[in-house]
């Protein structure tokens, strides 16, 4: 009940004309970048970070959250019409969505994606509004050791779950932590890793880091490997669906929401895993198994609902604990820090207008998104005709202006180039970027909590795990580390037992 009255106040904030305008701009921009190739929500928010120098935090975050949600919508359009997913979260949508489009059912695929996203986004936001205060109640009692444990969990989860190679994930995290260390140590006032360069004493500005790794690194990487053949696009009118489509879609929407929201809330690499899970679930539960692989509407409805619900879920740990679970959330956390606001359990008390205004604007943004996407899908598809040189030139242009504006110093431009080169190298050698950005942004906070925890325990290491909460978290960490390899090994063994040839070679090997 309390949360609801707070939410009503939030609607009053969100309904302010200026805030409505920023919500509208956010979802418009979000949808556009979701459609455009090579630009994701993390990069867009990074490029827009300079706005935080003059915008009120409430307005900035309303816009950023709109971009986050909108990006999920826009990604589905390209997945369905082009078979090239605009965002990693829409990869699964492409499987059935593009097949539907090829069979002349593009309008229905777009409609189930848009309406499913709307429903999942709305339910997800409602869950966020209800769950967040509960988590805050729990989190308000959390001490330094608990925080440190949660951050270690975030580091471990993001490095082990993401990407094919754990070593490379760990290397990326270590690089991020190293970059996060650059600057003056807050307790002793000594410079660390600054090489005596005065510009580095304050640390590297979050704008420069985010823009360098995401925008410049990505633009350079794509430019060096540009796809040249134009893709075949399927033309389509306004999105709409039949009664039969509705009947087949509503359950996958709800199941997708149920899968997406909790997965979004844990640091497990964003929407890739839950969307895949949703696809597999729908494939198992469907009454039309013969249609799967040939354009089954359930295979679009489920994953599309899932990715929007996971975006809402991702906001829970960000707003209540200050822990980002995706690249986009990490950049948003960077924006919070830029304002001198530390997201965490106290955020709801210190900045109720910001948090509830943000939540309320998400509801409004969802409605705007539905209105923008149902009738306007053909118009969004036209964005794909923008020549790539302008697209990537634009990215480098706005990256440069943003980095320079951070401190009005050319030094940041050189730093930006260096970080861009790092981002390029990481993409080239399969080091995932997300652990690095989370390491950079979360690293300094983790160090602070570690120091505080050991200060309280007077140096005894037990101070890190002497609360029940931290014990639980460390148990989870152990599970995350131990279970997947064991499961993998058991599966391998079972597979080898079920394959007679292998058994045979085992025997001959034994002789």
């Amino acid at each position, binding site marked *: 009940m309390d949360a609801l009255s707070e939410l009503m106040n939030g609607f009053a904030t969100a309904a302010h004309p200026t805030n409505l305008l920023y919500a509208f701009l956010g979802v418009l921009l979000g949808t556009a970048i979701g459609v455009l190739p090579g630009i994701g929500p993390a990069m867009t928010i990074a490029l827009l970070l300079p706005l935080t120098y003059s915008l009120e935090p409430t307005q900035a975050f309303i816009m950023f959250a709109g971009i986050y949600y909108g990006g999920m919508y826009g990604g589905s359009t390209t997945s369905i019409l082009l078979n090239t997913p605009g965002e990693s979260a829409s990869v699964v949508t492409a499987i059935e969505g593009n097949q539907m489009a090829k069979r002349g059912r593009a309008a229905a695929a777009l409609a189930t994606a848009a309406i499913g996203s709307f429903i999942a986004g709305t339910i997800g936001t409602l869950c966020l509004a209800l769950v967040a205060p509960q988590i805050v109640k729990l989190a308000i009692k959390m001490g330094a050791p608990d925080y440190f444990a949660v951050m270690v969990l975030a580091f471990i989860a993001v490095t082990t779950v993401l990407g094919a*190679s754990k070593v490379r994930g760990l290397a990326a995290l*270590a690089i991020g932590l190293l970059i996060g260390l650059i600057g003056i140590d807050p307790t002793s006032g000594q410079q660390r*890793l600054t090489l005596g360069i005065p510009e580095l004493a304050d640390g590297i500005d979050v704008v420069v880091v985010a823009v360098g790794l995401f925008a410049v690194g990505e633009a350079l990487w794509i430019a060096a490997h540009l796809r040249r053949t134009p893709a075949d696009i399927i033309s389509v009118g306004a999105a709409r669906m039949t009664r039969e489509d509705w009947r087949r879609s509503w359950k996958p929407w709800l199941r997708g929401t149920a899968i997406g929201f909790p997965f979004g809330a844990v640091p497990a690499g964003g929407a890739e895993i839950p969307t895949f899970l949703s696809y597999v679930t729908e494939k198992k539960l469907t009454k039309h198994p013969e249609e799967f692989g040939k354009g089954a509407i359930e295979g679009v409805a489920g994953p599309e609902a899932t990715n929007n619900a996971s975006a809402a879920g991702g906001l829970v740990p960000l707003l209540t604990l200050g822990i980002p679970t995706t690249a986009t959330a990490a950049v948003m956390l960077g924006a919070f820090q830029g304002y001198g606001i530390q997201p965490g359990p106290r955020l709801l008390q210190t900045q109720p207008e910001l948090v509830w205004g943000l939540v309320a604007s998400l509801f409004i943004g969802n409605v705007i998104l539905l209105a923008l996407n149902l009738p306007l899908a053909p118009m969004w598809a036209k964005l794909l005709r923008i020549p790539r040189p302008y697209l990537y*030139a634009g990215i480098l242009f706005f990256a440069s202006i943003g980095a320079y504006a951070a401190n009005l110093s050319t030094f940041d431009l050189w730093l930006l180039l260096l970080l861009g080169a790092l981002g390029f190298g990481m993409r080239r050698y399969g080091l995932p970027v997300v652990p690095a950005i989370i390491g950079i942004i979360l690293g300094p906070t983790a160090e602070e909590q570690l120091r505080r925890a050991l200060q309280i325990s007077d140096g005894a290491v037990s101070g890190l795990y002497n609360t029940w909460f931290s014990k639980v978290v460390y148990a989870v960490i152990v599970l995350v580390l131990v279970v997947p390899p064991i499961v993998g090994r058991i599966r391998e063994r079972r597979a080898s037992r079920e394959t007679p040839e292998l058994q045979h070679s085992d025997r001959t090997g034994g002789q």
Partner: protein
Amino acid sequence: MSTSSTSVKQGRSELGVALLLLVLGGWAVIDALRLQELAIRGPIGPKTVPLVVGGLLVLTAVLLAIDVLRGGRGEQEAGEDVDLGHGSDFKTLGLLVAAFVANALLIERLGWPVSGAVLFFGTTYALGSRHFIRNAIISIVLSVSTWYLFYLGLDIKLPAGILKGIL
């Protein structure tokens, strides 16, 4: 044959990544060791975390080297607009970096309206666009309008350079 030789080549450059991690780790450790511990502010001083991170970097360097020697290869990042069929296009990359560097060198001398336009025009050229008139118009409009946007909208004064007094 050509595939195996490129694989060996990539393996060698992947060992370079391990070496870079090792160097970064060493840097973190050496830098940490010269820091002074101040015991007053709790048991963990400024040294500890850099030492741990440095150690982590050295560890990942070793693990990565082992992985590469065993034949593990980093997966190049795929993407909707990325074609990994051909190798890196270093000519495009070089031109892009040149445009970027030109902006960094010119921004305080000639001002953003000029250097930004050079940056945008240069990058479109690097990426293969040859509509020179159209590109020049877009470049100038974009750099001048962003200058005004930052000046009026965000109250950030980007260098006006040679156009000082005109804008």
